[in-house]
């Protein structure tokens, strides 16, 4: 509790601080400090979880198990990196917006921190209702951020995001209600009927018909939030229109949080009606997401949309791997959840710098990045390696561990489909990356951001590569524990 409360309070307090006019000018720095502090706390939390098992608080409304700790690590790490980068990025961007379109200073950071707060609450909530509220809150904050720029595209994307995710999240609420109903019957006491840890313990005696129905709605609801096909359609629009740091955070932290929501339902369902039923659904939706994303990746002209589809594909891998359910696959899936965040956020952020430098978001305007700016070019290549899952990026190991686990399960056909999708995606992404990285530098390309803005990017890349060679023992232990949580 001593860790949980500060962790949850830091971000909202930071958000309020950003809105204070006196501090608004330095809101960027505040956001960085707050998220960095949150990251430190997340490390402490992970250590506590490793040392003494789940950390609970607030009468079991909050509870951090290994999975929460893992997601918290992802959220805070990426949030810190994105905030750090945003310090350099947002001023440059805003300087180019029209005067009347600008938001008051500090507003962006406040929303950003609100989003972080929502995600952290979602990660740490033990009560499924609370989880729902957190994710809905994060959705609302991020909807404003998606529509942050006052251009028609941003409005359109924000609208679609808000509407689709609201429907999705409403379905998730229905799922929560259904689960609660079945729990109340068993427990007789409504106060604990939404506590996940309690639900899982009594899962065996829940009414399977309601649990199944709940899982279906949760799958559609949280699945829409996580970007599973065919509920994914908001994702390319939102990611391409949101400010780059926000897109990076959404595609990693928000994805992880929403997926955790789904996985919590999955764990209860599996414990209630047996593993095969819900895992079959997860595997099918995972593979479907991979297959749906693939063609879009091949014929895509815009960088951030490309990343969005790649994000769908990665969500597919994750869902697939965790759905398969063998310990190795789940380990691979969770590791993938962890490491793909570094790759994806890196890809978004470096893309932001390049898009500003090239004054275009279209990839055909980006040729010769490596020549124009060796640093950005190298980072871009690193991000690409992470996205396609090639060594030395850690995603290579996580993907193949997942597949190795999948081949040892009954879902071999799905695994083959996944491999096929991965291979085609590889061809598509390599093609785009080749066009961007190689070739003659554009004459007017200049990196508008200060060189210091590369620091967070290098940090992400370093983490991505380092994890490809060496998984620290505590992280390994944390992943192992998280696997236990899910099985």
């Amino acid at each position, binding site marked *: 509790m001593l860790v949980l409360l500060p962790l949850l309070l830091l971000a909202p307090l930071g958000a309020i601080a950003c809105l204070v006019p006196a501090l608004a000018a330095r809101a960027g720095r505040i956001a960085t400090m707050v998220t960095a502090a949150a990251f430190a706390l997340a490390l402490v939390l992970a250590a506590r979880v490793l040392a003494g098992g789940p950390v609970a608080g607030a009468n079991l409304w909050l509870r951090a198990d290994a999975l929460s700790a893992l997601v918290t690590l992802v959220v805070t790490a990426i949030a810190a990196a994105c905030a750090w980068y945003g310090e350099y990025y947002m001023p440059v961007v805003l300087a180019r917006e029209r005067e009347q379109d600008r938001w008051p200073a500090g507003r962006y950071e406040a929303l950003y921190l609100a989003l972080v707060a929502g995600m952290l609450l979602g990660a740490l909530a033990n009560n499924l209702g*609370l989880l729902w509220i957190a994710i809905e809150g994060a959705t609302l904050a991020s909807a404003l951020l998606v529509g942050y720029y*006052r251009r028609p595209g941003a409005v*359109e994307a924000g*609208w679609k995001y808000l509407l689709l995710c609201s429907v999705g999240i409403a379905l998730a609420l*229905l799922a929560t209600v259904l689960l609660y109903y079945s729990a*109340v*019957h068993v427990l007789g006491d*409504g106060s604990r009927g939404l506590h996940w840890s309690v639900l899982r313990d009594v899962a065996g005696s829940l009414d399977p*018909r309601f649990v199944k129905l709940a899982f279906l709605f949760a799958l559609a609801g949280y699945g829409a939030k996580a970007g599973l096909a065919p509920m994914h359609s908001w994702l390319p629009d939102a990611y391409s229109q949101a400010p780059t740091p926000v897109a990076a955070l959404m595609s990693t932290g928000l994805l992880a949080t929403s997926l955790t929501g789904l996985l919590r339902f999955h764990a209860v369902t599996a414990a209630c009606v047996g593993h095969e039923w819900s895992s079959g659904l997860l595997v099918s939706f995972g593979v479907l997401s991979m297959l749906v994303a693939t063609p879009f990746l091949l014929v895509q002209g815009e960088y951030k949309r490309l990343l969005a589809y790649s994000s769908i594909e990665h969500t597919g891998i994750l869902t697939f791997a965790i759905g398969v359910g063998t310990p190795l696959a789940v380990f691979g899936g969770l590791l993938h959840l962890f490491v793909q965040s570094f790759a994806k956020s890196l890809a978004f952020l470096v893309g932001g710098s390049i898009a500003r430098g090239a004054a275009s978001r279209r990839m055909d305007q980006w040729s010769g990045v490596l020549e124009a700016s060796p640093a950005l070019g190298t980072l871009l290549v690193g991000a690409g390696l992470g996205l396609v899952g090639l060594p030395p990026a850690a995603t290579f190991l996580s993907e193949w561990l997942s597949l190795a686990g999948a081949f040892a399960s009954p879902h071999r056909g799905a695994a083959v489909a996944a491999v096929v999708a991965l291979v085609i995606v590889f061809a598509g992404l390599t093609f785009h990356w080749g066009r961007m990285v190689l070739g003659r530098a554009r004459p007017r390309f200049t990196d508008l951001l200060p060189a210091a803005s590369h620091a967070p990017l290098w940090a992400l890349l370093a983490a991505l590569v380092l994890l490809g060679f060496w998984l620290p023992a505590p992280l390994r232990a944390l992943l192992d524990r998280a696997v236990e949580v899910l099985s």
Partner: protein
Amino acid sequence: MNLQLPDWLPRSNTVNLLAGAFLLSALYAAAQRRTLAAITAYRFNSLALGGIALTVALATGTRHIALAALLVIAVKGGVIPSLLRKQALRGGGALETEPYFGVPAGMLVCGALVVIAFSQTRALFGSGVSILASCLPVSVATTLVGMFLMVSRKQALMQVVGLVILENAIFLAAVSLTYGMPLVVEMGVLLDLLVGVALLGLFVSRIEQTHGSGDTTKLSDLKG
């Protein structure tokens, strides 16, 4: 908590009646081409929901459901429709001129959705379970109808109406099945809804600013 229905509640009861009104008002909204009329339908829908909640509260004597019921009536039956109305009037009370489905076709689809929902969820209940459970089919059906409303209408506000009806349906499930969730959750949900609707309103006016009307079919620049 006692989940059995108290004896005094008649079998042909208020809840069933109100549930019927709930579904009907949703269908009525789905049959409307005028935004304002749809908002009014939503208001009735919310009131029916509030009525059910109140009945449940009275029946079970739980105070927090009563509180939730009152809040529902105030927020969903009062604040939100008014907000939407104001928004609609600002946009000139736009008419849904060319919905993707005409009224008869739309009704057919809605009918099909209702049948699906009933057939899929009724099977869940054996005999002797809480009679309030008959609200679940209504709830799922209304969820689908709300979604259909969003799919078939081009006016941004109509889609918002669809969304809030959908939320009502889920609230109905919560109230009828479980006699309400823990109060904190209920509050949080309501707060989120309120903020959400405010946000939706904000976006509707932005759409009207940037695109000149509330027609969301114009929002198709982002594709592929």
